[in-house]
């Protein structure tokens, strides 16, 4: 124990749990099969919804005959798009700060024209899901198919059909970013220029719990309760209020256990809104649970980028210029309310962000197409941005015969240079790229691996090593969405109160989807206030009982919500000590709280327990002076104000084995060095990083939503869409650097997306490292066996 008289640092106090791998209290329920997911709800008089979806990627809807469906057993109602037209206002996926972004108004069910295969066209509400599905099969829709626009590059050619007749072409948004002048660097014959065409296939979140809604409407009170499997309850409240034209306060969003979200469940889906409309029209609870086929066809997809990029380096490996053109297909609408332009915007902002780059030019085109909608999924834009820069950088290193670690050493922004503004205007602070790279080199024993590699590559199995240096956007400020007009809060709030038994109750606006949000809230509150963590009860995921806030997205829960909890717990502690000082005839400044007791700061002598104090205040208030009105409750809110985002950084590496006969890639080992600021719970953070890496490996090697040329999704089952399973995953070794963010006392940054953002680049680089001696390379993800063999010239493209 430290000197008794020295004031204890916030994180060294006896009840501090910061930095400890505290187990999750809710785990017991989940392990015992007592989780409470939306589909587990059975409400009196509840009905079940099923949707008929467009079989065409693009078609005019001529007629919809619902007569037979309405007569089918168990059916209570059948709706087409027109039936909802006066029940809901259309939504538009635009943000004003993304200047020029356009998207047509969207309704819950297609009206007149269906624009992607899987778009909901009609809805049946029946006494069971099976009966609702039976009736869907009886709905007769006459379609006039139209030519489907699928390829985002071809979609902008003058001869392409235009999806939305109100526009002249299929462009949703374009942005051009220029810093310095790239042309002289590319023209300089002394420089080495490398150029790549990169393709990032569409993939999707595959949350194991599908999208799920149960909606109740009370006609007498005009109140709506939405049982929600998602990440942003207050956003959902605002969206429903606005478009169902109900007062916001009449809508309650409740998220209990959520079976994975990863960004998938944070958007406005027509089928979910239709479920709410049906609940209101019928005044009965309605349940809609997407089945897996519907998930693949209607959960947002991500990526779908076609990129041409080039990099110029001087003979000593210094980056002289980077240029990139990105085409991204987003489906027929920009998703509401976050829009589908954010991923492209991030790519333009973040490509090359770890490096000193003076000359930069990037152009992004966001394009409408007749495929499922594309929007923000875990690590928005990061895997693309990191892969573009680091794949070019490693190719450049090979061409100038420089080691890939060495070329990074020459170009990374120095750790002592911060704050730094990047070529794209991003403000960076408190980053540690150099330290992260050196720690990675040590962790993976880079030199030794390279030596082994040079002797091992004799036969058809080639090994390769690839690295990535990366940044991750976390803890966003209102600059992300709020300034563009979206009903999305970038601040979060926490209320901490003490009850009559001296226990703490915390309610907080961030949400839990398994990452351990509730645990870290309890850790922070217990430590700051001074009680055992067992005496802290946490509530999240309910708009009726938590303060207003953004929820959990963009790796913001711990950093922003955690800080709100810290501030509220500290404020409550001061309030409690002031009352204790009156009772004890002492001075609040000389008292502290530890292990659930009020103690003397000077000698830690116990003065009274919180239990005694609570009972005195709540039951025997008459013993207090009349002017003392104790309030054992404090609410604090927090937002990041000095920076648009709090960036984290990391370095990762993969070692792979490529079988040049079969094209199969095996990931042998994976290393991560991550600087997410203060680590609150190491086990939770490490498992977030590992899970993120696994999703990143999925995108790099396996996962792709495959479409035919006419816009039919070809692999909408788990048998056909491959996700990583236990047997395919390498050991993932993790080390941390802790550079706390100076924007908060807690110092925590986000960690949830790093793995997904960085892993694809490391894997791609490792594969190309293995293929380089054979004169082959690949720049398409996922790097499937077929594509590897094509790259090797073994099979035709």
């Amino acid at each position, binding site marked *: 124990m430290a000197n008794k008289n020295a004031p204890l640092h916030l994180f060294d106090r006896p009840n501090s749990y910061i930095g400890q791998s505290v187990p999750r209290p809710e*785990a017991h329920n989940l*392990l*015992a*099969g007592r989780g409470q997911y939306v589909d*587990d709800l*059975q409400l009196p008089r509840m009905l079940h919804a099923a949707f008929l979806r467009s079989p065409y990627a693009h078609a005019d809807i001529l007629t919809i005959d619902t007569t037979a469906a309405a007569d089918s057993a168990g059916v209570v109602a059948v709706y087409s798009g027109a039936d909802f037209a006066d029940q809901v206002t259309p939504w538009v996926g635009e943000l004003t700060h993304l200047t020029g972004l356009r998207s047509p108004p969207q309704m819950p069910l297609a009206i007149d024209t269906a624009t992607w295969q899987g778009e909901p066209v009609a809805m049946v509400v029946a006494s069971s899901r099976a009966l609702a599905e039976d009736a869907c099969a009886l709905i007769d829709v006459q379609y006039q198919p139209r030519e489907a626009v699928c390829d985002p590059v071809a979609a902008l050619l003058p001869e392409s059909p235009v999806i939305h007749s109100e526009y002249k072409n299929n462009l949703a948004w374009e942005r051009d970013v220029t810093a310095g002048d790239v042309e002289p660097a590319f023209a300089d014959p002394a420089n080495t220029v490398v150029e790549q065409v990169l393709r990032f296939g569409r993939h999707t979140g595959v949350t194991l719990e599908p999208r799920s809604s149960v909606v109740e409407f009370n006609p007498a009170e005009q109140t709506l309760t939405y049982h929600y499997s998602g990440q942003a309850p207050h956003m959902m409240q605002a969206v429903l209020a606005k478009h169902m034209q109900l007062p916001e306060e009449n809508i309650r969003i409740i998220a209990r256990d959520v079976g994975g979200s990863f960004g998938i469940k944070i958007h406005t889906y027509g089928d979910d809104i239709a479920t709410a409309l049906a609940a209101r029209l019928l005044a009965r609870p309605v349940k809609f649970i997407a089945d*897996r086929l519907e998930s693949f066809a209607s959960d947002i997809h991500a990526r779908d980028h076609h990129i041409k990029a080039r990099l110029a380096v001087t003979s000593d490996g210094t980056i002289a210029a980077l240029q990139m053109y990105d085409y991204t297909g987003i489906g027929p609408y920009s998703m509401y309310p976050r829009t589908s332009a954010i991923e492209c915007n991030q790519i333009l902002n973040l490509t090359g962000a770890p490096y000193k780059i003076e000359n930069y030019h990037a152009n992004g085109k966001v394009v409408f197409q007749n495929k499922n909608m594309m929007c923000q999924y875990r690590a928005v834009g990061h895997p693309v941005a990191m892969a573009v820069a680091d794949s070019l950088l490693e190719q450049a290193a090979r061409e100038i015969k420089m080691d890939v670690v060495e070329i990074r050493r020459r170009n990374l922004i120095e750790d002592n240079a911060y704050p730094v503004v990047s070529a794209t205007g991003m403000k960076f602070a408190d980053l540690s790229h150099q330290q992260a790279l050196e720690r990675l080199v040590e962790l993976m024993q880079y030199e030794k691996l390279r030596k082994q590699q040079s002797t091992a590559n004799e036969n058809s199995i080639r090994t390769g090593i690839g690295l990535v240096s990366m940044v991750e956007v976390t803890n966003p400020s209102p600059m992300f969405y709020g300034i563009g007009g979206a009903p999305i809060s970038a601040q979060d709030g926490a209320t901490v109160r003490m009850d009559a038994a001296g226990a703490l109750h915390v309610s907080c606006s961030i949400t839990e989807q398994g990452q351990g949000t509730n645990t870290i809230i309890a850790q922070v509150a217990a430590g700051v206030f001074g009680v055992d963590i067992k005496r802290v009860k946490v509530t999240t995921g309910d708009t009726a009982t938590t303060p207003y806030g953004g929820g959990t997205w963009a790796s913001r829960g711990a950093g922003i919500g955690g800080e709100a909890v810290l501030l509220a717990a500290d404020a409550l502690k001061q309030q409690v000590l002031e009352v204790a000082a009156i009772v004890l005839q002492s001075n609040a400044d000389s008292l502290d709280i530890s292990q659930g007791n009020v103690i003397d700061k000077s000698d830690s002598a116990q003065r009274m327990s919180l239990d005694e104090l609570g009972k005195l205040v709540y039951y025997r208030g008459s013993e207090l002076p009349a002017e003392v009105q104790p309030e054992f409750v404090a609410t604090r809110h927090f937002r990041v104000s000095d920076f648009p985002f709090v960036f984290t950084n990391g370095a990762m590496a993969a070692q792979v084995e490529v079988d040049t006969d079969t094209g199969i890639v095996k990931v042998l080992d994976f290393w991560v060095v991550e600087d997410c600021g203060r680590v609150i719970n190491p086990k939770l953070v490490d498992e977030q990083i590992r899970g993120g890496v696994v999703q990143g490996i999925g995108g790099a090697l396996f996962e792709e939503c495959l479409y035919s040329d006419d816009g039919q999704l070809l692999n909408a089952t788990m048998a056909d869409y491959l996700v990583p399973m*236990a047997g395919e*995953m390498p050991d993932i070794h993790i080390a941390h650097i802790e550079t706390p963010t100076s924007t908060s006392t807690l110092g925590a940054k986000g960690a949830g997306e790093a793995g997904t953002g960085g892993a694809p680049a490391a894997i791609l680089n490792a594969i190309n490292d293995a293929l380089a001696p054979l004169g082959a390379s690949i720049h398409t993800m996922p790097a499937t066996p077929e594509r590897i063999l094509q790259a090797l010239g073994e099979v035709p493209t």
Partner: protein
Amino acid sequence: MSLVTVNLTVNQSARTFEVEERTLLADALRDELGLTGTHIGCDTSQCGCCTITMNGDSVKSCTLLAVQAEGADITTIEGLADGDKLHPLQTAFSACHGLQCGFCTPGMIMASVELLKQHPDPSDEQIREGLSGNLCRCTGYTNIEAAVRAAAEAMRN
């Protein structure tokens, strides 16, 4: 629509209910018996969320109709603990942080019950093989495998 009567022993109690013939066992357990710990992640037998034990073998309950289980002896995740005392697998998943969102967890644990029955001291390879039908989308699998190893050890001692 005609209903059929199904008789099962579930978590050691005799249960009788009526369902449509086409009702999957997974749906019947959830909707008729309220055993919502058995989850449905795909209903096409890929994800393993719906894994239960039937007559001593682990099966994916979405691959069977409820009527096909007539007379069977079934254990679901709710029946695994011994009263308040968690099964060693449940304890180990908690201690090793082998879960995030928990949606795959009941299936993972029920599949592991069978895995440990066949291999009381499983190799890493056997663990991966035993869990090859179970998808987890949240974790990196590392802690799930560690939990199975820890449970195996606890059960051997």
